[in-house]
């Protein structure tokens, strides 16, 4: 029996606070991974989308969502993975970008995925805001980031790739 006392927006508000397992400073909603909540007679269906096809955080996110639903006694609940439309960093809110920057990760450039070789994008250092930065490694600790170095303050930092 579905507890219908919860509306879609209440469920979204509840789940909006779940942090991204790899970058806990932003939530799954701010990242654009929480797509929808569908309430039917069979229960609550939480629709999420992966960032990268091989993103290993998806299993953890599903557990976190189901855990949160159980904690609030909202049942039955299930999580459905959707691929369409494909996740994009363009969905990331300005607030989320600012949170990333304060956390030390340079946020993705808006809608400007660079396909050129030997990339010529200017990535600002999240610490001193200098534009004199250089790429150290195209790939980083997670699928969504690459590694940079600031030539002004000499700190190394991560850049959230455009996707």
């Amino acid at each position, binding site marked *: 029996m579905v507890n219908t006392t919860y509306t879609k927006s209440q469920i979204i508000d509840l789940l909006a606070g779940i942090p991204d397992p790899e970058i806990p400073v932003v939530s799954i909603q701010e990242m654009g991974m929480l797509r929808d909540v569908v309430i039917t007679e069979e229960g609550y269906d939480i629709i999420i989308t992966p960032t990268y096809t*091989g993103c290993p955080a998806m299993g953890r996110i599903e557990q976190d969502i189901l855990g949160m639903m159980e904690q609030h006694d909202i049942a039955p609940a299930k999580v459905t993975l959707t691929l*369409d439309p*494909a*996740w994009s960093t363009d969905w990331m809110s300005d607030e989320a970008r600012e949170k990333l920057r304060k956390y030390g990760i340079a946020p993705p450039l808006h809608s400007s995925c660079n396909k050129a070789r030997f990339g010529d994008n200017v990535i600002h250092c999240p610490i001193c805001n200098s534009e004199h930065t250089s790429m150290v490694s195209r*790939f*980083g600790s997670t699928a969504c980031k690459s590694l940079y170095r600031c030539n002004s303050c000499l700190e190394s930092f991560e850049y959230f790739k455009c996707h």
Partner: protein
Amino acid sequence: MTKEQALYNYCVRLGDNALVQSYRLSEWCSNAPILEEDLALTNMALDMTGRAQLLLQYAGKVAGHGKTADDMAYRRAEREYRNDLISELPDADFAFTMVRQMLVSTFECFLYAALVSSSDKEIAAIAAKAVKEARYHMAHTSEWVIRLGDGTEESNRRAQSALNILWSYTGGLFETTDADALLLSEGMAADVSQIKTKWQENIEAILREAKLILPADDYQQTGGRQGLHTEYLGHMLTEMQYLHRTYPEAIW
């Protein structure tokens, strides 16, 4: 052949290509010449694993036999694999890996860009994700091909010798079967004959910049579509499927 059978074969071929590439790339884990490349090669392998999982899972769904992505990966024999031969060749050195990945990722950029408008919704959705990752792989590997080709005498020699071997396997990327014709008429598959010209132009531009020479001999070894593989795939599967063959019901 029914439409479902053709679609199943198509998904298996795309999924197997991702899986086999993933395996070869992950063999570099802890063996790459520099730390950054260790990260790059394993990150690319992870993208490929994700892609293989989606495609093989979908293949199982299309066939309706209830097989999971794991069943498809670990419980099929060599002759049931439909990947391109170029992906299964063992890595001779770093230059070989980079030249191979550049050739294949460039092809995949065009392939998945075309599949984004597939009439099959699931293929289109997977393609929309895969194309972004393939572009990143192409950018990274073509940079390396240029660095190596236009680098030292030794790096040029290695990149050229890799290209000489790999070139005769690129024809397999464009190999088609009757199933392809059926899917093409339904607007589900990508027309590889149209991709070929664009692919070749891109490759030639990269090779020119890399000071590498296209081999004069244009003999092409094909067979992957029929499940006829090189001796290397069997060895790879022996290792990859060992656990599942030894402990058939093993789960995490």
